[in-house]
């Protein structure tokens, strides 16, 4: 293994993406702008009439294409969704799926046609499609954030990348499957390539192509949950929020709504070509009517509503579009920020949900171009070492005072493993120690190695934790942590120490909710990543009686709104519209 130096593939990809980010900035931001506007208008159109109108229209379409049972199912299902209060989220999801599918069709069918006519193109496209389908969808999101920021646009584009392969593949298949004799017949009568394509190949391939589009719709729908990680709104965000807060009921409601939408979209798109009642009323009229119902209001909204108010360019709110870039929807930091927005009367402002990774990506992007940005931040965090940033003053103390990070173990851990318990109990260090590890990791070191290095360099501190403790004998200790840089650092350090003491340590990275749930139900032994009293307050309240709190392992953390130093504001009260 050591004969060859590690190929810096990750670095190459990073610099490539970085280069694209810088050089195609204008292109990306205008593309973002266009897609965002299109989608906003689509959401407006879908949400224009009372929910009942849209429900009835979808019911009629389902009835017409797929029998009355499907119509009835659509009616009851959508009424249920409406009743659960998830209608707005549903509209967002529908708009997201419609937009993704529209892009998928616009991109996929021409590419499929091209590849079906040209073997070279097919040979090039096929491995790319394999790559696109097997590369985990999360991976697309990373560059998508850098290119398009967080919000709905990277979500749509990731959905398109994920959903387009079946449309392309089945277009190729459908066209290539047209019997040779029919192609010969078409040629023998002197058709041009286009005539052959439009009069023979495409009509015969239509069922296969539509099956591909149906697949794409389903895949696009399955991406809405993942897209919510980068801040795409809709049912996916509801699911994500429920997961991060361990709200089983809410999660089920949102999940069920997705299932209902999926079934309706699947059946309608499957039967679109041969609607069940197609003989009673020609499909031309029905689809024409529905298209008109969608397109006309859409055009009216797009071109009729240009009445956005002008705000002075000096206003910071205008510069950042009244958006604060947040992190995972369940985090206490988000609750605190919401409280701060209320306290400072930031009514026009929006807190964008996403993830901490998405937030730092946004920050990096804005910072490199000296763009204004406001993020939710916390200390310790490597971003303070990497960029010149400042906390906005919080005179009303909405974010509370500084926090501590606590070590928490499951009930019964002390009895099961008293020595490991002792080490965890004495684990305590300073923010500067932690940031030392974090910077190493941020600079590319593997977390275990950065942790090992720190342990080697600070024998005196480690000694304090392990003094007088008997060595372990291969007992299992499982630690859980959230993928925040600070927690990665601390968990790896304590993990490394426990390993040195002879324990068989496993580290599991989870979301904040599962982290608490895991320790509470005993499936994990301990965590060193509980932020109190603010960030993880909700979780502590939920699981108070099922956990053992060993007190802080680090003090002096801080939460708040963070901006780059180049921004001309200093206090949260500067954001208020006066």
């Amino acid at each position, binding site marked *: 293994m050591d004969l060859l130096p590690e190929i810096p593939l990750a670095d190459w990809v990073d610099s490539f993406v970085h280069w694209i980010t810088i050089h195609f900035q204008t292109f990306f931001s205008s593309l973002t702008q266009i897609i965002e506007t299109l989608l906003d208008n689509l959401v407006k159109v879908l949400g224009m009439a009372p929910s009942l109108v849209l429900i009835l229209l979808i019911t009629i379409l389902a009835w017409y294409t797929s029998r009355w049972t499907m119509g009835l199912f659509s009616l009851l299902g959508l009424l249920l969704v409406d009743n659960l209060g998830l209608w707005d989220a549903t509209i967002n999801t529908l708009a997201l799926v419609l937009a993704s599918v529209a892009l998928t069709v616009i991109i996929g069918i021409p590419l499929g046609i091209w590849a079906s006519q040209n073997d070279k193109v097919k040979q090039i496209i096929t491995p790319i499609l394999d790559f696109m389908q097997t590369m985990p969808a999360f991976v697309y999101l990373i560059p998508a954030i850098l290119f398009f920021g967080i919000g709905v646009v990277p979500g749509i584009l990731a959905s398109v990348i994920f959903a387009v392969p079946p449309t392309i593949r089945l277009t190729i298949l459908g066209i290539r499957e047209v*019997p040779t*004799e*029919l192609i*010969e*017949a*078409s*040629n*023998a*009568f*002197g*058709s*041009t390539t286009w*005539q052959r394509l439009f*009069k*023979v190949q495409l*009509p*015969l391939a239509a069922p296969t192509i539509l099956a591909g589009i149906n697949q794409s719709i389903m895949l696009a729908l399955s991406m809405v949950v993942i897209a919510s990680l980068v801040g795409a709104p809709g049912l996916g965000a509801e699911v994500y929020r429920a997961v991060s807060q361990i709200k089983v009921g809410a999660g089920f409601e949102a999940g069920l709504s997705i299932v209902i939408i999926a079934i309706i979209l699947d059946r309608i798109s499957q039967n679109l070509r041969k609607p069940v009642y197609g003989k009673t009323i020609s499909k031309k009229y029905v689809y024409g009517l529905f298209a008109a119902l969608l397109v006309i209001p859409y055009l009216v909204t797009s071109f009729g509503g240009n009445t956005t108010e002008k705000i002075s360019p000096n206003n910071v709110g205008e510069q950042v579009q009244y958006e604060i870039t947040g992190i995972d929807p369940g985090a206490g930091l988000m609750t605190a920020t919401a409280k701060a927005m209320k306290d400072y009367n930031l009514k026009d402002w929006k807190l964008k949900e996403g993830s901490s990774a998405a937030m730092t990506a946004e920050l990096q992007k804005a910072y490199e171009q000296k763009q204004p940005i406001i993020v939710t931040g916390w200390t310790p965090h490597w971003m303070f070492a990497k960029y010149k940033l400042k906390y906005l003053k919080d005179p009303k103390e909405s974010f509370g005072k500084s926090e501590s990070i606590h070590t928490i173990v499951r009930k019964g851990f002390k009895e099961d493993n008293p020595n490991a318990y002792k080490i965890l109990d004495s684990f305590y260090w300073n923010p500067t120690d932690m940031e030392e590890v974090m910077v190493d990791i941020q600079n590319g070191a593997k977390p275990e190695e950065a942790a090992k290095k720190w342990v080697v360099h600070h024998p005196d501190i480690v000694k304090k934790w392990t003094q007088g403790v008997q060595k372990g004998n291969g007992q299992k200790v499982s630690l859980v942590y959230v993928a925040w840089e600070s927690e990665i650092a601390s968990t790896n350090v304590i993990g490394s120490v426990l390993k040195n003491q002879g324990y068989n340590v496993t580290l599991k990275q989870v979301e904040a909710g599962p982290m608490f749930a895991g320790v509470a139900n005993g499936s994990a032994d301990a965590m060193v990543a509980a932020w109190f009293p603010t960030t993880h307050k909700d979780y502590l309240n939920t699981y108070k009686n099922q956990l053992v709190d060993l007190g802080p392992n680090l003090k002096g953390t801080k939460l708040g709104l963070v901006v780059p130093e180049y921004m001309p504001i200093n206090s949260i009260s500067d954001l208020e519209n006066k």
Partner: protein
Amino acid sequence: MKSKVTVKNVTKIFGKSPKNAIKLLQKGYSKSEILKYTGATIGVNNASFEIYPGEIFVVMGLSGSGKSTLIRMLNRLIEPTGGQIFIDDEDIVKMNTQQLRDVRRKKISMVFQNFALFPHKTVLENAEYGLEIQNIRPEERKKRAQQSLEIVGLEGYENQYPSQLSGGMQQRVGLARALASDTDILLMDEAFSALDPLIRKDMQDELLELQETMKKTIIFITHDLDEALRIGDRIALMKDGSIIQIGSPEEIMINPANEYVERFIEDVDLSKVLMASHVQKRAERIMSDRGPRAALQIMRDQGYSSIFVVDRKQKLLGVITADDASNAIKENKTVEEAMQKEIVTVSEDTLLIHVIDALATSVLPVAVVDAEKRLKGVIIRGAVIGALAGNKENLNAKEVN
């Protein structure tokens, strides 16, 4: 006669190194040797022939003999590797895409083995296809498609889809589609092979009937020798990509070019191919104004028991037997009065199978006459049996057509 289609030294090699294959071909290597050495397959090897306006030219061979490749090169559905193909004096091998498209639209149309109808189009729309892609106005093309559907007897089925029709009717649609373009040349690739035997025979008859009025130049591919013999004006026989014999059905039957052709035609029912002209013998005759003594004298000299009676223009009037003649001498009658007028005749192109019927119903010799009833010859039982047994000595070498 000036030819409509001229094929000169056309070769088709499938595979990656056609040049090497052609070299080996010129050195006289066989198809299987070339496949072994170069990986290339010989589709068609140096085919040359001419097709005349208004004839049905049948290309006949077993599967893999290259006949389908050959016909597809005539409209360049398959590109020839070498050679020239002239259609009305224009070499289509040299044509660019646009010119080729015009030839396909205006000069050559095609009927396919498995019909190749467009399943998403109605019968009428299928028939219109060739006109539709020429951007002819909808009313005009509908009218023309309708006419060609009528020609093939499909009026009333315009709005059906191909899947609703029987095989025979589907191929009528295929034929109507080809006819609608009103091209001089019709390529028919195993057009009737997918039909069951009875329907196939009906379609052959109909094609021949249509050809009476249309006078198209038809190139017809088949693997069925009976079909080739039935409809072909001339037949080209192919084996392993080469044309081994071209000729009229009779020529091929009577003078097979080699052992392969001989074996090929071995199982043919000769009675359905050979005609009266192949077995007829010179008939002894007597003018109607001669006396019965003369007739009796001729019969005695030649050893016949009867003799045909003709007028000055050689028109057959009847037959007189030796008994009839003896009686006439006694009763002092003329030959014309004494002869029997009820005689069985066949024409020169009557197939032997029908000649046998005639022989069976008549005790008198069967006469061969032409359209003006002029006596051409006589059918002798022994010659018919000998010919059917494959005995060439009993066949007349002269050509009929």
